[in-house]
């Protein structure tokens, strides 16, 4: 099946071209089916490559070179792929979740006039995302990286008549570009050292380098800047909540399950380099942990269902970076993997709710939807329990592994990590109870229209809910009777890291301690859920309306710490203002004056010569004549 691997990215690309060129006027069902098929077939192909790969003895990575892209002197870049544990697992998520979201979108976007464009962009996104994870070198990764940014831009601004949405789209692309420059410079630095862009060669040659090497440190910091932009970490996170302007399936696929995890992928892919740079790892750990908690606190006070989920995504990505900073690469991937399911589920569930509510996204105007939307309610509940980390749902295992690594590093980190998890549990159940329980708070008209979503939407919800239940079993720890399958499966791609750290003492938690930590965190989470239940379900507390006054610190949370306003005042507006200032000061008052001064001199002097009266061309001919005379003179002089 490996020979057909090229079809995996090519089919979504073909789907894009078909939809964009022939989509207009074609029946929506046909467009939706073809677009979904273009993701389903790659999924099947991925599975059929994955299974023999897992069963093979040596897990030898598959590398295929297709075409030369750029070849100049020793610089050589090919269109080539590398299929190993990491890329295959990513591909499964991208095509698997991607397919479900395509199916869901057929129902969700059914009444949109630009239906075909939506599917075209969605297919194009999957194409670029697959390039990102399949490419065998940093340049192809960069191609995918920027390509998904393009699709994100297109889909955030999908409803382009709304100026706010267009602003959000620009913001997303430009903020990402800040990170992208970092990534690009990081790649150049690696090229300077290794003279190649290929992952495997860099990882191999890096093994010769001692930990703490300044070049590797700088390169990894630059790569991490790229990751910060794409994965919406502090300080480049504000684009992601705004990105919720896009249709909800887009939020699920791009801004939760796949694209935003590209930063995690980048770092796991470069794990050898990061292991060689303990300083960078410290930075990543701090940025991740701070983002995780910071975004979670904002989530506490948001009333837009999608905004809550968006901040929750930022926060969960923070957890993944936290794990990466701890050197727990597999734990980070594990959380990425489980998060993809339950966050996609939650977003699609919120889409189902928004669909039923006729576009309303404010949870203060919802309530009691349980009885109208039983499937959405049930699946959403599963997603909420999963993200809160209740066993045996997926989120429990992955979050537990991160917390265990944190404890091994330093118990303080465990406490902070758990604190973030408790915040998550609280705002998620706040959201859950406000949406599905109590009495309906919307208009009568809305209530009349409440309905469960069509099958194309509920079936993906059900499948994702099942995944959110079982996904955690890929890496059950020994203490719970599992065998750490994912850890063992990923051992090969982390071999370099293992090699570098060989001989270093690893703090290992005792079995008893692991049980205690788990029990504490589960009990704490359950108490928080219980508190949320009393507050929002039993007591029927509804967050204050927009006009009502809110105490200071809460207001700060409602206003998202006013980071947007800060950036606007400190960066965005000054850049534009400075632009006209520069023009005024340098252009009008400086360069133009000089030039005009010179011009004046020329005009004045030519007046005296009385040559220019016939016009500019006369001057030109004059100049030419002078030139030729000069040559003649020179020639005579020589002879």
């Amino acid at each position, binding site marked *: 099946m490996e020979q057909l691997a090229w079809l995996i990215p090519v089919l979504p690309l073909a789907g894009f071209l078909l939809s*964009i060129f022939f989509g207009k006027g074609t029946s929506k069902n046909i467009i939706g089916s073809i677009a979904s098929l273009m993701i389903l077939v790659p999924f099947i192909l991925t599975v059929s490559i994955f299974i023999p790969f897992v069963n093979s003895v040596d897990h030898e990575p598959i590398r295929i070179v297709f*075409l*030369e*892209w*750029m070849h*100049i*002197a020793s*610089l050589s870049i090919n269109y080539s792929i590398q299929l190993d544990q990491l890329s295959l697992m990513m591909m499964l998520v991208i095509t698997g979740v991607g397919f479900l979201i395509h199916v869901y979108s057929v129902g969700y976007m059914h009444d949109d006039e630009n239906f075909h464009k939506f599917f075209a962009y969605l297919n194009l996104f999957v194409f670029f995302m697959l390039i990102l994870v399949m490419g065998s070198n940093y*340049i192809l990764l*960069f*191609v995918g990286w*920027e*390509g998904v940014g*393009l699709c994100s*831009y297109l889909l955030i*601004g999908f409803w*382009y*008549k709304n*100026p706010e949405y*267009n*602003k959000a789209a*620009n913001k997303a*692309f*430009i903020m990402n*570009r*800040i990170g*992208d*420059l970092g990534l*690009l*410079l990081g790649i*150049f630095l690696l*090229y*300077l050292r290794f003279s190649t862009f290929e992952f495997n060669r860099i990882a191999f040659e890096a093994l010769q380098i001692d930990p703490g090497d300044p070049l590797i440190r700088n390169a990894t910091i630059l790569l991490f800047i790229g990751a910060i932009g794409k994965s919406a970490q502090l300080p480049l996170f504000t684009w992601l909540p705004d990105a919720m302007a896009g249709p909800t399936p887009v939020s699920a696929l791009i801004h939760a399950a796949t694209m935003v995890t590209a930063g995690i992928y980048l770092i796991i892919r470069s794990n050898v380099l990061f292991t060689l740079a303990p300083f960078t790892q410290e930075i990543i750990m701090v940025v991740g942990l701070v983002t995780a908690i910071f975004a979670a606190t904002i989530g506490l006070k948001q009333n837009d269902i999608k905004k809550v989920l968006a901040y929750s995504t930022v926060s969960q990505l923070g957890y993944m970076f936290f794990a990466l900073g701890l050197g727990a690469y597999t734990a980070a991937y594990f959380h990425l993997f489980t998060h993809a399911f339950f966050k996609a589920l939650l977003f699609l569930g919120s889409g189902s709710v928004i669909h039923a509510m006729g576009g309303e996204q404010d949870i203060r105007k919802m309530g009691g939807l349980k009885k109208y939307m039983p499937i959405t309610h049930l699946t959403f509940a599963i997603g909420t329990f999963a993200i809160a980390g209740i066993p045996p749902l997926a989120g429990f295992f992955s979050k537990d592994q991160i917390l265990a690594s944190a404890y091994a590093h330093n118990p303080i980190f465990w406490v902070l990590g758990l604190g973030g998890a408790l915040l998550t549990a609280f705002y998620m159940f706040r959201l859950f109870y406000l949406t599905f329980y109590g009495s309906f708070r919307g208009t009568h008209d809305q209530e009349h229209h409440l309905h469960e979503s069509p099958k194309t939407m509920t079936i993906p919800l059900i499948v994702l809910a099942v995944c959110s239940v079982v996904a955690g079993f890929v890496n059950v720890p020994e203490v719970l009777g599992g065998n750490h399958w994912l850890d063992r499966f990923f051992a090969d791609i982390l071999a370099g890291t293992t090699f570098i750290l060989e001989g270093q003492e690893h703090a290992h938690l005792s079995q008893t301690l692991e049980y205690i930590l788990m029990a504490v965190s589960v009990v704490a989470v359950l108490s928080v859920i219980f508190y949320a239940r009393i507050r929002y379900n039993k007591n029927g507390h509804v967050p204050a309306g927009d006009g009502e006054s809110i105490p200071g610190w809460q207001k700060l949370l409602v206003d998202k710490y006013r980071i947007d306003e800060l950036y606007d005042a400190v960066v965005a507006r000054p*850049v*534009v203002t*400075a*632009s*006209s200032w*520069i*023009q005024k000061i*340098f*252009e009008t008052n400086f*360069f*133009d004056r000089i*030039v005009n001064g*010179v*011009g004046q001199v*020329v005009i004045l002097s030519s007046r005296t010569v009385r040559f220019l009266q016939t016009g*500019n061309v006369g*001057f*030109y001919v004059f*100049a*030419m004549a002078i*030139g030729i005379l*000069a*040559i*003649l003179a*020179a*020639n005579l002089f*020589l002879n």
Partner: protein
Amino acid sequence: MQTPDTITLPLTGMITVALLAFPFISGLLCLFIPKQAKQVALVSTLIQAILTAYAIYLFNINYRSGFLANMQGIVDQPWITQLGVKFFVGLDGISMLMVILTNFLLPLIVLSTWNREFKQSSLFYFLMLFMQSALVGVFISLDVFLYYIFWELALIPIYFIVLIWGGENRIRITFKFFIYTLSGSLLMLAAIIWLYLQAGSFSIGDLYNLRLDLSSQRWVFWAFFAAYAIKIPLLPFHSWQPDIYTTAPNAGAMLLSGIMLKMGIYSILRWILPITPQAVLAYADVAIIMAIVGVVYASWIAIGQKDFKRMIAWSSIAHVGLITAGVFTLTQVGFQGALVQMVAHGVNVVGLFFVAEIFLSRLNTTQMENLGGIRQLAPVFASTFLIITFASAALPLTNSFVGEFLLLNALYETSYWYAAIGGLTVILGAVYMLRAYKATMLGDVQQVAGFADLSLSEKMVLFPVVALIVALGVYPQFIFNLTDESVKFLLFQIDQHLATTH
């Protein structure tokens, strides 16, 4: 039997001369059939493009002439014997690429005027074709005096095009333009004469064999470089450019920015680097810094522009700044990046000025505040413009990513800071392009009611532009293969020169 020395190349001097003369002759034809001048011009540029394609087909990329890399299609005839000026032309990979750029863009530029009725249109098209010949002449001349003549001849038609068919303030602006370029040219002329006195010939080979002392190299360098820095333009010689791009008819702006400014960059490669390499080494950092500062400066100003054409003008300064910086890295990657980016910029800027032409022809304005919401009414136009927008912002798999990537990579090897600062174009380029796209195309329709989507002739300009954007982005190797030999030779020439001067 033929020995390798006497091997007859398929690309003969006949074809080179035809490439040079054909546009001018058909330009004259335009003057004689004024009613069909537009049609004549289109057919002529298409024939010229086919002829160019034929020349590519005949071009032997692996041939080594022992003289100037793979230079072929040579014609070497005495011309002004008293002065030792020869009619000496030929094509190596770099010249070929520039000729390709010129001759493939010209049909698009002629087509871009299809819906416009110029007064005295026969004169307009004559000037355009005249200019095409002059540009080809610049790119194929191997006699520096001949080169200088073409360099000056190229100025005349564009000067009249802007003066006669330009917009507001055209008299003042063309005068400024004229003074600027002329003063540069005169410096260059002085240097050329001086070089002739040293070498006793205007021939490229003799000039390349000159071994000037460092102080002579210095002033020759600056005399040439000033002319090119004005033409490109680099900071601080740029202030003619935004005005003239804005006031020029769009076809004129395409000629200026798409092709003519590349004369400057090409000439650095052809006439500065191999003749004054020691001075180049001494001043490379100065040139790079000028260029890089220009990248940031011009990008920043582009962000605040209210007129779409003026924004393109500033963005163009930024782009060519990066190209020039890449040239002065004196590396193979830098040269190739510069070459591929010259082509990419030519294609993209023609696309952008044509977008401006579409705004102008429909709504009689290019002020961005008077536009907006067009996407809703003209989806095909919106899509093509979007692709050009992202190509200008150097998205991977578009043509300018390849160039920008190579240029920044080459700069990185010279200094981290050059790449980091020049790399700001990655961010700033996205800022001004996306702002412009949003302002002109997105939002709700207010002031643009009745905006028609692309007509057939408009599609025939924009679709090839889009095709070139993607094709060059996905497979730029064609260009690298074409210019590989010449670029290597150029580096070899520089190294050899440096090794044999003291």
